[in-house]
């Protein structure tokens, strides 16, 4: 305990544990992960980055829709996932492939969603559907956690969102509710410096995003989002606080969006390549590999094995997602309400009859 209680987001430097060259700068805060665990974490990073790149190439080949890459966000999402439980509830925005997977969503379901099928949002994990609209879902996480508190359940909720989302009214309203009602939720902001073409400096005149928590009476803390040890340390504390009844925390994880905003975007139009190149040395995956190398726990052979295993898992997920039955026309009506309304009944009958008569579609 202590990092969050003593945090001053107006003046603190962001919390860092492992620097970008793979040296521990605050060893006391470092999780006691053994080499085997570290190698597993690294493997997940490689694997999820490959899954991410796969969705980009599927989109290019017309096999999937627009997709927002998570490249660069792996430490934020994997690190925060390791600090919570599978029974906790996740409320993602859209750039959240890794956290959804880590919390138990099957990769094929995640793929299916981006391929444009609603069944991709129907998974067994405690993960809410992707929220494409910016800023609204932290309120859902707040409400859900409110209920968990009322029901005396031990679980917490976490909403994930970007720097841009902190400009919305709903974001403040969620923090304000959470503050007033002492709600066991965590607001996890991945500040990747950009909201499409808008740099964070045009999003707010505040020095940090973490300080936005102060006005709502909850703690805010800035952490190096490319440092999985730092993310884990801060997230562990926030989650413990929430479970102990101490209420919500805003975590601003400072990271970088290496890719385009989505496959429909061309960042060259507004962002100098020089900036991206300069940020490469802060890549969260690189940092972990440097640490493994220092510990003699990484070599080319291991890397090749990791890539081979990951490729196979990604391939299998694509196959399953593409093999998922295509939606039937009736489905667009069947899930609007618990029971079909008379108007929908009529419209459905019309469409099915029309397709049979004119389009020979089932």
């Amino acid at each position: 305990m202590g990092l969050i209680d003593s945090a001053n987001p107006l003046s603190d430097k962001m919390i860092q544990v492992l620097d970008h060259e793979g040296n521990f700068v605050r060893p006391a805060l470092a999780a006691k992960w053994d080499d085997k665990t570290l190698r597993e974490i690294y493997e997940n990073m490689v694997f999820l980055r490959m899954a991410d790149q796969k969705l980009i190439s599927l989109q290019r080949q017309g096999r999937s829709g627009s997709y927002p890459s998570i490249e660069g966000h792996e430490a934020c999402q994997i690190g925060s996932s390791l600090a919570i439980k599978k029974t906790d509830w996740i409320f993602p925005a859209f750039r959240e492939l890794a956290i959804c997977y880590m919390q138990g969503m099957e990769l094929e379901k995640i793929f299916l969603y981006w391929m444009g099928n609603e069944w991709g949002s129907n998974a067994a994990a405690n993960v809410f559907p992707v929220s494409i609209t910016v800023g609204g879902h932290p309120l859902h996480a707040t409400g859900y956690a409110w209920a968990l508190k009322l029901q005396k359940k031990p679980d917490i909720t976490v909403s994930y969102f970007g720097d841009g989302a902190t400009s919305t009214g709903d974001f403040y309203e969620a923090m304000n509710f959470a503050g007033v009602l002492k709600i066991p939720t965590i607001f996890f902001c991945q500040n990747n410096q950009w909201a499409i073409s808008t740099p964070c400096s045009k999003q707010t005149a505040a020095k940090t995003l973490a300080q936005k928590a102060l006005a709502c009476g909850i703690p805010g803390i800035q952490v190096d989002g490319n440092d999985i040890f730092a993310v884990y340390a801060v997230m562990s504390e926030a989650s413990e606080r929430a479970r102990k009844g101490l209420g919500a925390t805003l975590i601003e994880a400072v990271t970088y969006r290496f890719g385009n905003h989505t496959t429909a975007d061309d960042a060259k139009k507004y962002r100098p390549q020089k900036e991206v190149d300069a940020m490469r040395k802060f890549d969260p995956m690189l940092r972990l590999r440097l640490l493994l190398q220092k510990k003699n726990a990484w070599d080319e052979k291991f890397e090749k094995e990791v890539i081979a295993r990951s490729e196979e898992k990604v391939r299998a997920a694509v196959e399953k997602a593409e093999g998922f039955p295509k939606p039937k026309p009736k489905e667009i009506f069947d899930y609007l309400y618990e029971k079909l309304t008379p108007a929908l009944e009529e419209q459905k009958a019309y469409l099915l009859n029309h397709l049979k008569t004119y389009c020979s579609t089932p």
Partner: protein
Amino acid sequence: MALLTIAEALNQALLQEMTNDNRVMILGEDVGQDGGVFRITDGLLQKFGEERVADTPISESGIVGAAIGLAAAGMRPVAEIQFDGFVYPAFDQLICHAARMRNRSRGKYSCPIVVRFPYSGGVRALEHHSESMEVLYIHTPGLKVVCPSTPYDAKGLLIAAIRCPDPVIFMEPKRLYRSLKEDVPEESYEIPLGQARVMIEGTDATVIAWGSMVPIALKAQASFAKENVSLEIIDLRTLSPLDTETILNSVKKTGRCVVIQEGPRTCGLAAEISALIMEKALFDLKSPVERVTGFDVIPPLLQAEDFNIPDDKRLIAGIRKVLA
């Protein structure tokens, strides 16, 4: 004259209005360096600077609310909302304030803003990027609603909207942004709000369309022409106020009418038009008015999107029904 797409025509309209009137300014998400995600404001930042082309924080309520203040103080803000599905956070500002300023103050204040956004589906986009909810704005007293379907109209209507002393919702059919080109005069011109256009004259039935559905109406017209059935095609262009005269004159002439609408069926503009015809031209009708519409469903994700959007097959079936 130059052959322009709708996207280019809109860009030209903005450029000319900003050149002619230094009160005109643009605000919205990614409208500056990026030129908007559909590039409608491309090049305007370079020409007019950050004061007149303002990238805003992500806050639709902020964009529209600030535009109301800017307009009241004498500016002519053109607000861009990035997609149809992202207007909703601004509804309090639009419905409770923009639409009411004039009436509330008995004319002391007015609200000459334009709120532009791309609408319509069919581009294989993500959720919230494919909506056709014009009826929400039409149903709001105090707002005008414009929806062009051609490059020529897009330019003239946007200029008229910017010059309009009242708040205008300007809906741009995104799937037509770059799908067709047309000769557009270089000089600035207005197409008066509130006037529909008879695109093709005909005698056997009237087809009423707007925005994204107009090309489908034209396709159906061409196909019926081969069977010597003469359809009259009306592009509404302005959805509020509605040009009831053009609609009624046409229906009185043809005696048959089909309205095609991309948005959900219940309480859509097609329903309003059908009620209008029932009230004012019932005894001229040879068959009931037919509506071909989207269903009362959430726009499906891309794999099922086509099941919902009316196409030429559905329109042709509807037209056959009124001709029978």
